[in-house]
């Protein structure tokens, strides 16, 4: 079958279509890139101002020591989740629709971790001593405190970033080889180096597939562990509304939920712009939408369990915090969260809507918003209303922290734009493989 001219022509067409995205950029692209860069620079300047002046410019105060920075940190870590899920877990489960999303999802993962990783630094009172958190040999024999969830974070995030990078890169090797064939000049050389001598022989493919399965098996536990560790930043504290055992599962589900939503937010416009309708079909979207729906239900279930536990426990502190969440100063945000994460995704039960990209896009944006508010509500409402009524206090965002949070989105999209022009946006070989097999069976 591989020898037939028809297949060859088809493959050629596929290469052309996918690699079309890597051609010379349009003015619109440059404009988008410039906007992102500009906002990132503003964010950098705001961070510099914050370092020089003090954390006070970021609006936090005595009870509310964590606010938008940690919210956004958890948000981006959550976004980073679906990359591994779609790549590794679905690879192991041999879900075919995976191949249409995995490249963007993996790229998204890496950029999201890069964004998330900035926030613990931005959040630190003395960022110039950030290396104190890492265990490094020193003459004072001072180590970091391994009982602190923040140290676990350091390991969880860096491990996740490493594995994701390796996975991302390994997945691209055959594609680099294709790009190398078509590129010229310095680009040819660069893609040549990146493709590490890939020739597509039987042996290479056999080894390659084994490696992919191995990496997938290696990465799968990370899907659970990373966000569990992030959730323990909260669950290990004794604060009402944080100190609960459901946090790990609840955060992992939430992370997959938000990450998948982000995939929709990115892929739907990408498909349109690069004319990939032939390769990413409505069936593919529909399959992924089911994942969105099931995680939405898990998240909603977790919300309900949280409330039930608080009231069933009879703990006055827990009770008070959940009443406060639903009716207190931040109640508006809480109800936005409930609408975006629990109510809006319910329409995905309708098959027609699962195939309607406009609605899907809107729902995915809503979920992104809802999940950001979820973290905000968890963090800020608990801190502002904990044990001693005297010490309660409210947090109000300022220009500086809002600016930095916005800049983090620009930072993320900046990398995604660069990705779209420099790397193959779909896993070409995998698409070929799947479509070839599909045709054979048909």
């Amino acid at each position: 079958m591989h020898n037939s001219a028809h297949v060859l022509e088809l493959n050629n067409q596929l290469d052309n279509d996918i690699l079309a995205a890597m051609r010379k950029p349009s003015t619109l692209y440059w404009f988008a890139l410039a906007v992102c860069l500009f906002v990132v620079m503003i964010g950098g300047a705001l961070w510099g101002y914050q370092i020089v002046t003090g954390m006070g410019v970021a609006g936090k105060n005595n009870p509310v020591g964590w606010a938008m920075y940690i919210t956004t940190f958890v948000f981006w870590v959550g976004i980073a989740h679906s990359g591994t899920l779609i790549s590794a877990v679905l690879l192991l489960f041999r879900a075919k629709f995976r191949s249409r999303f995995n490249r963007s999802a993996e790229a998204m993962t890496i950029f999201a971790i890069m964004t998330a990783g900035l926030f613990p630094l931005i959040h630190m009172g003395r960022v110039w001593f950030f290396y104190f958190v890492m265990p490094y040999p020193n003459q004072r024999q001072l180590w970091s405190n391994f009982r602190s969830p923040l140290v676990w974070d350091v390991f969880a995030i860096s491990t996740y970033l490493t594995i994701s990078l390796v996975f991302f890169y390994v997945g691209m090797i055959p594609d680099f080889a294709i790009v190398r064939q078509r590129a010229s000049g310095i680009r040819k050389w660069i893609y040549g180096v990146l493709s590490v001598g890939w020739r597509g022989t039987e042996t290479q493919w056999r080894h390659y597939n084994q490696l992919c399965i191995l990496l997938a098996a290696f990465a799968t536990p990370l899907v659970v562990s990373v966000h569990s560790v992030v959730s323990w930043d909260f669950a290990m504290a004794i604060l009402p509304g944080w100190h609960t055992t459901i946090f790990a599962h609840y955060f992992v589900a939430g992370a997959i939920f938000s990450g998948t939503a982000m995939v929709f937010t990115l892929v739907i416009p990408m498909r349109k712009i690069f004319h990939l309708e032939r390769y990413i079909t409505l069936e593919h979207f529909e399959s992924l939408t089911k994942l969105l729906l099931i995680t939405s239900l898990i998240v909603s279930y977790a919300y309900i369990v949280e409330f039930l536990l608080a009231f069933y426990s009879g703990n006055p502190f827990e009770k008070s915090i959940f009443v406060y969440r639903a009716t207190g100063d931040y109640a508006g945000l809480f109800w936005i969260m409930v609408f975006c994460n629990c109510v809006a995704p319910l329409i995905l039960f309708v098959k027609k809507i699962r195939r309607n990209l406009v609605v899907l896009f809107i729902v995915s944006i809503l979920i992104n918003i809802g999940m950001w508010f979820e973290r905000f509500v968890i963090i800020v409402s608990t801190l502002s209303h904990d044990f001693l009524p005297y010490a309660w206090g409210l947090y109000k965002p300022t220009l500086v922290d809002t600016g930095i949070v916005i800049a983090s989105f620009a930072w993320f999209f900046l990398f995604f734009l660069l990705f779209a022009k420099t790397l193959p946006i779909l896993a070409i070989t995998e698409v070929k493989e799947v479509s070839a097999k599909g045709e054979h069976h048909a």
Partner: protein
Amino acid sequence: MNRREFLKVLGLTTTATVGTSCLEEYHWLGNKPKKIVSPALSPEESVIPGKAVHYTSTCSECPAHCGLLVKVMDGNPVKLEGNPDHPVNHGKLCLRGQAALTRLYHPKRVRAPQAQSGGKWQEITWDEVCKRIAEALAASQQQAGVTNVYLASRTTGHVAEAIGMFCDKLKVTRWPEYEPFAHAALREAYRKLFGRADIPAYKIAKSDFLLTIGADILETFVSPVFYAQQFASAKQDTKWQWTHVEPHLSLTGLKATQRLVAQAGSEVHLLSFLIRQLAKSFKKNLPEEVWQLVPEQPLEKVAALTGIAREKLASLATKLQTAGHPLIIVGGIALAHGSGREAALLGALLQYGLGMLGDTVDFAAAEDYSHVGSMLDMQKLNAMLREKKVGVIFLSRTDPLATLPDSSQFGENLRHATLRVGLGDFLDATMQACDLVLPLSHSLESFGYVASGKHLKSVVQSTLPTLYQTRQEDDILLQLVQKAGEAAASQQIVASRDKAKEFLKQGYVVEESVSVPVELNAEALVAARQDWQVKDTLPTPCTLVAVPSLRSFDGRSHMLQLLEEIPDPLSTISYGQWLSVSREDAAKLKLADGDVVELSGHSMASSLSVFTVKLPVKLQPLLPQGSLSLHINASIFSKMAFDPRCGELVAVWEKAEMRKTGERVALPILGASPYQEGRGILAGSKKSHHTQEDKHGHDHVHRDEKDAKSLYPKHANKDYRWAMAIDLDLCSGCSACVAACYIENNVPLTGAEQHLYGREMSWIRLEPYVSEGGEETVQTQPMLCQHCESAPCEPVCPVFAAYHNEEGLNVQVYNRCVGTRFCANNCPYKVRRFNWFGHNLPSPTDKMVNPDVTVRGRGIMEKCTFCVQRIREAKEIAKDENRLVRDGEMVPACMQTCPNNAIVFGNILDTNSRIYQIIHAEKVHRVLEEFGTEPAVYYLAKKREKKDA
């Protein structure tokens, strides 16, 4: 030089260096046991870096004159503590006393003499000052009918003598001293009935039943630290009873066994009732015609007029009758209204009748108010100024422009004087209106003595050379006297000041006094009865009372930012002015905290006292319905009138009205809620069903050991486990501990704007909570780092900046902290403070920094350390003597200053220590104990029930 020679020289020089440095009693952490010296006695005492010396002196922040020990390090006073032997304060200071140090280093102090011409200030020399004053004095002496006037605030000791001498020799009229709170009605009553225009010492500790009517003895009344000490010692007797009567809500009232709310202005009816009830059983036999002068009031009517229940009135009379040593103090707000004079007279009569004079009311140890005038004297001065009869006027340490009513037009009239000379330390309203401003040295830069009581002289000692070109008042007068050629007089001034040298070391001297029996002048009562102004009006729906603030007193301390930074303990508002309203009144107008109301007040005493003002409100639990209260500041003073009969300020507006304006103001309310919400925060309060009720009572100390379940081994303590016990029964919320902590630990001030964000830095704060269960009351609870055995802050710190040391202290390592703020999140007591910004110390406040404590920079966490620098110091001393720190040697700053002796600190591993005894013998409570944090701060529950009858 060969090798051997080199080694020889090296060896010799090393030996010499090490040897000589051992000769000096050098101690890197500071002082050996407190050494009290004086620069006047031992001038050879040079400054040794890092070594603290303590000088005796006297606090000048209010007229009470508490004895001080000034801690001086590297030549700068860095902390004020009470002189432990001083009869007034026994080693304690109030928050204003603690803050007095910040006045010395205040950046806005006037630094050199200045002259005003055409609205512009110009620095001049002291010689020029003298020249101009001498010329002006000479010129006005030639004018007929023109007097030169010297007006000062209450002055005692050598400065009073110098003023007397100066006025005498230079023919200046020494005007009766001006104090806004001069206790005019009280002194007038004592003068009329007993011929003594003084304020006696009230011996609370000697009494077995105390009745205070209006007098806020634990806040601002006469000598609050003295009374707090008396209160603390009276409290030792569990049978001691105290009833407080007030129209509003005060910290003092909350400490009384029984707090009775009486309609403002109706105190006189209560007193009449008590006299008529008790007259027949008086210890001092009063002739019937005397007590018959007191109007008869039936019980029902008194109950209706005052608003106090009948049975409570009856039981009050019984308590007074049965008490062996009763004491009645009438003062403050109870006298600041139209019938204040009558109330003072009746109070004095009751004191006489019940045999308190010479027993619990002691005129022999009276406060010296002999030179103090009243508003009537100020009225006279004002009239003279208006009629241009005043030549040169000296205004010393007084701010009449800010404290006299606008209606007096004192500022206008002052312009008619030919030369206005202001003496003081700040360019306040009065000084701004002067031609010459002479900067006075702070009392810590001056030398001499003051009289704390009539027979108690207390030294004022210079602890550092003057920071600026300032002079002490008597030096200025001395130069003027010398210039006038009065050599003998100038010698006398110096001689009077030098008397202080005789008691420098002790800091005070008590002179022998003969107690003269006080007799009643009944005729004066008959005369006073002619002018009896008592109205039988029933309570009005809304009454406004204005009371002096614990923090700024009569406004003289308002420029000290520390006192604004520390919130008012009841409202928890730090910066700004507000109106306290009851929950019921607020509900009626649908008011919330920060809503601005337009307030108008009409006083029955004086038609002049009508005003309207716009103020934001604060809901105050326990404030009686219909009662509005605010703290007096300059804007309130400007609207106050006085009783033309005795010169007492009128601070009660019987007909007050407020109207909601719809505007809102952001108030820096530091305490978000005064309610415990069933969380069992206060000792002895009811918890809701989940949290464990303290069933075991006092044996829970043992329970911890049994129930402690942890994955980690218990901390091993070596020699010490520091702990603190706070007796809430004694804690009045006076905030002295907070001020002491700020200064001892270099805690930065953040200002009003940051307070609105909730970024105060206090290491110890007072949380007022409404009690739950039983009769409603408000109890302030000091909250500081609890130094938990299983501290939630410790495991979450990624870098070990928060860790547990072997003495049980929860230590914060500043230079290890990276500022993740996880520790503060996880602290259930929310006592950790993050440095949101860097804090700059404008010169010369940098000199006030305690060199034993690190100044923290931006981006790190800090909190109470149990004064670890003092622990280190005590341990170093003990180590030198090869022993452990003894109980009572280690005293943290808060405990040191606590006027009520509510705080006990010590090592609980020492079974003989006071702290060990207390927590094992008494019913103790630890806040949020159910979380297993095992705090080291124990709160002692109230021992007695608040009960009526």
